């Protein structure tokens, strides 16, 4: 069976979302770089895989997908049984719902509050040579604190977001949180002891450690 292919730079947070799932299920995969500086993501070849001209894209034989969360779920559904993992909990109505809830929360609430800090402090200065917009950073940090209040309450009751089991919902938080820890505002998490402990549990996972090594915090 040919390894599946993930198209996009390995250090991309959205690609990492897929890669961590591939690592958790022990699937063979290949990362095919897409040169964003050279606008390769807008090439006809890439548009055939991702019609919105974004990264990542994915291929497994005849199946071509885009949207990192959809791709990651495909990977988990395909390989989970043989790998002996259950990160989606689709066999249990309530557990699956909780995984879905916190996956949506990461997408709609956590990431929009946290990722602007990553973009302003790390990505834009390195990629565009622009200075950090402190106003955006301050506003985002205020939003993030409110979000972390909710996470702290949740993680005081359960070891992981969907319940007392690691799930896809937790793993979705890894890539951008990893980069956040490389900004000057990493210590924000110190005020949320259960959140910090949960993050450290995630960061200690072999899959996360392995990928983190390829996601340097200096751009």
């Amino acid at each position, binding site marked *: 069976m040919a390894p599946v292919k993930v198209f996009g730079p390995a250090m991309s947070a959205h690609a990492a979302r897929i890669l961590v799932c591939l690592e958790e299920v022990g699937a063979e995969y290949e990362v095919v770089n897409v040169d964003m500086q050279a606008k390769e993501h807008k090439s006809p070849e890439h548009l055939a895989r991702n019609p919105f001209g974004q990264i990542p894209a994915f291929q497994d034989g005849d*199946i071509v997908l885009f949207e990192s*969360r959809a791709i990651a779920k495909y990977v988990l*559904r395909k390989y989970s049984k043989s790998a002996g993992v259950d990160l989606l909990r689709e066999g249990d109505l309530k557990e*699956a719902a909780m995984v879905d*809830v916190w996956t*949506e*929360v990461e997408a709609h609430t956590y990431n929009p509050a946290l990722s602007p800090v990553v973009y302003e402090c790390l990505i834009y200065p390195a990629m565009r040579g622009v200075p950090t917009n402190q106003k955006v950073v301050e506003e985002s940090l205020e939003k993030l604190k409110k979000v972390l209040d909710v996470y702290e309450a949740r993680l005081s009751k359960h070891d992981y977001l969907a319940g007392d089991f690691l799930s896809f919902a937790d793993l979705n938080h890894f890539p951008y949180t990893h980069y956040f820890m490389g900004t000057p505002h990493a210590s924000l998490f110190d005020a949320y002891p259960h959140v910090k402990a949960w993050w450290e549990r995630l960061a200690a996972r072999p899959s996360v450690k392995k990928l983190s090594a390829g996601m340097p915090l200096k751009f």
Partner: protein
Amino acid sequence: MAMKVYGPAASTNVARVLVCLEEVGLDYELVPVDMTKGEHKSPAHVSRNPFGQVPAFQDGDLILSESRAISKYILRKGGGSHLLREGNLSEAAMVDVWLEVESGQFDSAMSPIVFQCFVVPMFMGGTTDMKVVEENLEKLKKSLEVYEARLSRFKYLAGDFVSLADISHFPMAHYLLVGPHASVIDAYPHVKAWIADIMSRPSVKKVTELMEAAIRMN
């Protein structure tokens, strides 16, 4: 005990959940949440949706937030799994792909347009910011080009079968159709036909009526 949905019917995220309940024919109770009075930030509501948003949902002792998560739970439980295709790897993946697109592309462009064209003048006594509307209409058009290409090849977004990915578009599509910028879809004939098809579903018609009634009451 019937399932409970907490939130105003006029909210697109609430409507998304209601249409799934209508699709599977499960009994439910719609419990109003008066957002003009800040009820969504009340301790009672926040105990159900910790981010103080709508909808919230209750089925027995299970309490959920996030409309797309709630929708999937309802479809799985109520015999609507054909709208998710979770038994088929590639079909389920396509449903997921286009649900992500609905959220990341369609909803993200439509939401500021609907906010400016409906919420600001009707609920906040303000004036529409046309710059925001124009910027987001441009984003919407770029997305619709991709939708047009897709729907030229397949009857529905995930393939030749209707799914939650299609139905999830209906609340924002409704506001597009009844708002001042409905003509934007005229340039995308397959998109226009697909929207008409979705809007003709009995479940969608029923919830559209609920949305309209809720707006008329304001």
